[in-house]
């Protein structure tokens, strides 16, 4: 039983980070109906930003989070200006393939510059510290990452539901033309949404080098899991993506521990198929 709780908690901590990555994708998907295939690669770039800040300037990932968030916000906004802007209003496949090209580009650019080797940051503040509560052990880096994810998701959710800017986002998501007639600059909303979506994954990637090695392929699996979380949660629903993130994290950890490590992703993708076969629009979708 103790082992079960321990494995579950490890999974949930991971799951919250998945939820943060998914929340960024979810915003973009919900507002613009675009699947950003380069989302995982944004995460990888953010990890490199945080890694090099730590390696060259001795900045701890805990502080680099801000820099990584800002960097990916800009990367997202630039992506929107140069690529996504031209795909709005065209079949969904166009944006997906264009961002697939971006993913191939970013992955190989990092491979070329930083080599495909695994890079590990040592001597970080959080390091290998652990926190023991009763018989349960919390790894501190993952715990901090999970709490950070929780705070960021909460802030974004509050922003969308309580601020004027958030209402403008909701209006744009519901009906772009009507929103435009009400005087909302939808072009700017799209730009900012792509930036915020990027910033979410930037923050997640900024903290990760405290406990995870950086390499050019690291983003692909996170990107796929984010797609699964968003679709499982339901179209554009941030609470849905959050719940799905927790679910995916738990299933991944439990299947990895009780069946075999190779089966953990099979279980995750099997879970997605089961959910959408029962509810074709996801848990909170309609």
């Amino acid at each position, binding site marked *: 039983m103790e082992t079960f709780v321990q494995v579950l908690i490890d999974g949930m901590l991971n799951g919250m980070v998945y939820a943060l990555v998914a929340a960024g994708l979810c915003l973009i998907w919900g507002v613009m109906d675009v699947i950003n295939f380069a989302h995982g690669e944004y995460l990888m770039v953010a990890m490199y930003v945080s890694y090099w800040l730590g390696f060259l300037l001795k900045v701890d990932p805990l502080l680099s989070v801000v820099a990584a968030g800002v960097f990916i916000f800009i990367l997202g906004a630039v992506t929107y200006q140069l690529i996504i802007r031209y795909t709005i209003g065209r079949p969904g496949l166009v944006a997906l393939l*264009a961002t*697939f090209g971006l993913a191939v580009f970013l992955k190989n650019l990092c491979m070329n510059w930083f080599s495909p080797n695994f890079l590990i940051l040592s001597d970080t503040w959080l390091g290998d510290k652990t926190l023991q509560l009763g018989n349960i052990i919390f790894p501190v880096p993952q715990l901090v990452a999970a709490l950070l994810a929780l705070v960021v998701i909460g802030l974004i959710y509050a922003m969308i539901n309580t601020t004027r800017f958030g209402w403008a986002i909701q209006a744009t998501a519901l009906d772009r033309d009507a929103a435009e007639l009400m005087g909302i600059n939808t072009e700017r909303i799209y730009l900012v949404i792509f930036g915020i979506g990027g910033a979410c994954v930037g923050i997640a990637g900024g903290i990760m080098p405290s406990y995870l090695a950086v390499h050019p392929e690291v983003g692909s699996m996170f990107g796929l899991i984010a797609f699964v979380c968003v679709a499982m949660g339901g179209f554009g629903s941030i609470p849905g993506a959050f719940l799905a993130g927790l679910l995916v994290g738990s299933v991944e950890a439990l299947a990895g521990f009780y069946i075999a490590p190779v089966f953990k992703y099979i279980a995750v993708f099997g879970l997605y198929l089961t959910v959408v076969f029962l509810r074709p629009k996801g848990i909170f979708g309609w």
Partner: protein
Amino acid sequence: MQHKGIHKKDAYWLGFIALLTMLPMVPAVTANSFHMHVVILILLFASMSQAWNIIGGYCGQVSFGHSVFFGIGAYGAGMAVVTYGGMPWPGILIGVVLAAVVAVVISYPCFKLSGHYFAIATFAIVEIFHRTFLVWDWVGGALGLDYPLVKEGLTNLMWYDTKTGYYYCALVLFLLIFGTVRWLEGHRFGYYMRAVREGQETAESLGVNSTVVKLAAIALSAALTALCGAFFAQYNLRVDTPMVMSLDMSMKFVLITVLGGSGTLVGPLLGAAVLIPLQEYTRAFWGGMGGGVDLIIFGLLIILMVVKQPAGMIGIFYAVRKRILKRNIAAKGESADGAP
């Protein structure tokens, strides 16, 4: 529809195929086996993408799961030769049939999903198959299947000295798949598929059973894809999961068709004729420069092509033809005005 004589469009195709048949007799092409390799790959990828085009282009169901069927075909041929030490032919047959069956079984629930939910479900299926095959020892596991050296020829579907044998096999594959799609275009079933693509509810209200149409289309598409997979295995003399059954392979089906022009007969050929030389020659020129320069350029070009020409290369072709026609009409108009 009844045609008398040969359709004008088909006449061009027949001429093109006659040219292709003669290609190995041009010494400049056969002398450099790398050029031959590129031509074979163009034919193979055009055929694969055309098979995808049946379900993705004509029937409008964008599947990212075709590497599963491709992989089943490749494993069918590979296991017949490597695991059972026989000829590839029975394995190819089993692979083709199995791919169609698997396609129907997994697509039946997936077709109830719409838009991005369907696309992500197909990603999930590829990942499940990929990871299962990686740890499944019976199919070779993570090591993959390496072909033994056996006598070359059509019975073993293997050639070593020249690539001419492979070339003609690829040409037969190309003829079979493009012919099937050309036939479908004029057949009742082709119209059903396009009706389902344009509006499933409308098609159903007119008495088209959309579920049956979609399942039949994916079964046909999967069977033809598996055939291409079997050829790929015989050509590479090696089968392993990351090569044949990965998301990257799945993306190629979609990219080539969409870049060429999805839902058109020429589209997959155009896409393959541009993308494959690009991939192979950038790999040959920059692949040795260390880490991914070829793929950096490849990624940029994909972005550029998708953003600038979302209708595919066939779109450029139509735009150019329209301009020429317009100019011709304008020229005629002028001469008519100038006449007394």
